[in-house]
């Protein structure tokens, strides 16, 4: 693990890269990000920490295409995310495609759809990409079994424990085989036992599926288990 500030290299070296990223709200009155540059290699496990309001969640949202920057660029495999082109002539990926095919999300409050059972929740991202319904169900079932939920396939979110809900959410994030997994305080709503299990699971999943994991957390001990760790303060990377 390295705590050193991350240098920006050529786009081709990074799976995901942000250049001089700025994000402001209310016509510039609130500056959440004040020029962040960062490169993330394929297979990395990056932890982002910082106090509340430091901009860590905003950075995660921009990295995952959930929001668009006020200024600056997000590049995925050298292609601009969410813009038609950039000054360097790089290609682009639209936000919907990026979120559907390349990025998977895990949220602190799970965000499962209450009217769908576990296996249906896991299938939701696949419904946006087409494909055969039976194949989608098999894929969702396999992931839930892999995450130890073989007996909870048809349970609704309210019938699951918090730890089980987060495992369903992890299965959902993996279902389209993303290259980047983005987790926003994934253990924030769990007790210490379940937190440890989920972290262990995420590390296993990341290793098994060979994907890049970017995790926002306020817990330094969790960040210590990451390959790389960046700290943020006042909208900038400070360490």
């Amino acid at each position, binding site marked *: 693990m390295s705590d050193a500030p991350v240098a920006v290299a050529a786009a081709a070296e990074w799976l995901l890269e942000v250049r001089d990223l700025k994000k402001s709200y209310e016509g510039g009155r609130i500056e959440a990000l004040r020029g962040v540059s960062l490169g993330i290699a394929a297979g990395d496990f990056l932890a982002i920490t910082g106090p509340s309001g430091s901009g860590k969640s905003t950075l995660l949202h921009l990295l995952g295409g959930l929001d668009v920057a006020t200024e600056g660029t997000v590049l995925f495999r050298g292609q601009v995310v969410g813009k038609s082109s950039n000054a360097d002539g790089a290609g682009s990926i639209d936000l919907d495609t*990026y979120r*559907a095919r390349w990025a998977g999300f895990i*949220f602190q409050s799970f*965000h499962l*759809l209450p009217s769908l059972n576990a296996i249906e929740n896991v299938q939701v991202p696949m419904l*946006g990409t087409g494909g055969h319904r039976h194949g989608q169900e098999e894929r969702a079932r396999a992931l839930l079994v892999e995450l130890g939920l073989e007996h909870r396939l048809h349970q609704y979110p309210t019938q699951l424990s918090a730890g089980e809900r987060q495992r369903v959410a992890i299965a959902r994030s993996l279902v389209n085989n993303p290259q980047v997994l983005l987790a926003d305080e994934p253990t924030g709503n769990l007790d210490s036992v379940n937190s440890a299990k989920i972290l262990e699971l995420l590390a296993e999943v990341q290793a098994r599926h060979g994907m890049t994991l970017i995790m926002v957390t306020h817990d330094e001990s969790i960040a210590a288990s990451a390959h790389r760790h960046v700290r943020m303060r006042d909208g900038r990377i400070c360490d």
Partner: protein
Amino acid sequence: MGIGAFVALVGFSRSFEHAWLEMYESAGTDLAVVQKTFLNTSVDQGIAPVLARIPQIQIAAPMVINMMAVTPEVNTLVYGWKADTFEFSALNILEGRRFRDGQQEAMLGELLAGSLNKKVGDSIDLQGSEFKVVGIFRSGSALEAGAIILPLDEMQSLSGMTGKVTAFHVQLKPAPAGVSPAQWRQQAETAVENALPGLRAVPAAERASNNQLVTLAHAAAWGTSLIALLVAALGIANTMAMSVFERTKEIGVLRAMGWSRRRVMALILVEAGALGLAGGAVGVLLGWGALSILGALPQTASIASTTLPVATLLEGLLMATVVGIAAGSVPAWRGAQLSPVEALRHE
């Protein structure tokens, strides 16, 4: 409720139109000679010899029609016919006899006689004049079954139309060899309109759908239904707006999972359409129930049919679905415009 109103009102007005058509068809009327103007049409009875000279015409029967109150609650159609008109051929006299011209005599349709509890020998008051019931008849047309028929001259006097009639109902001679019935009828229409400028010769089916009463009934039914549909659309729009608002976070999850704006919009529109369709199905049942009630009430039994036409049913369901989708389009568009982050933060 909008679809219920549509089914009941439009179904009612279509029953009315159908009853007119039945009346013309059962009597064998080919054409009706009427004024070109739309409201308050009346035709000079003195044109009868002109019509009689038109080679295609076999019989031209003068007739008057009006709506009159027979009790404070019941209004009914009253016809004025000549005692020897061909239109009697469609009627089956169940009791009594046909009236005589120039006499204060009336014949009652069996439906009306039943609801007024009148029989042959009784009398009936029409606009202050007393008429003796001389016959009870059965007719295939609901309009006639619930109507009164008076001698033409008595009806003209009662309606202040002395020397005037509402229309001449015309039977044509058989078409000669080599001329199709449609061509023959067309020739008759042209001959009437050439011989009598200012008058129209209207085919029976067109007269059934375009006469003043039917046209006004259709207009009133559609107008009222459209207002009810507008209210229903506002209701669906409100429901969908609430639904989208309550499910903003859910929309955020779908967008975060890569669902495009178009797909989210389609989801909301499908829900709105399904809501409209389900409401429409309930509305069709309510409308059918209302039609059944109208069919049982003495005031409307002569006009309303309890049979719900398939076309009205399908129109009602289609309209409900379209109204649902239209009403859901603004909430759908607004829901789809939300950014995932904005939607996920929604409480």
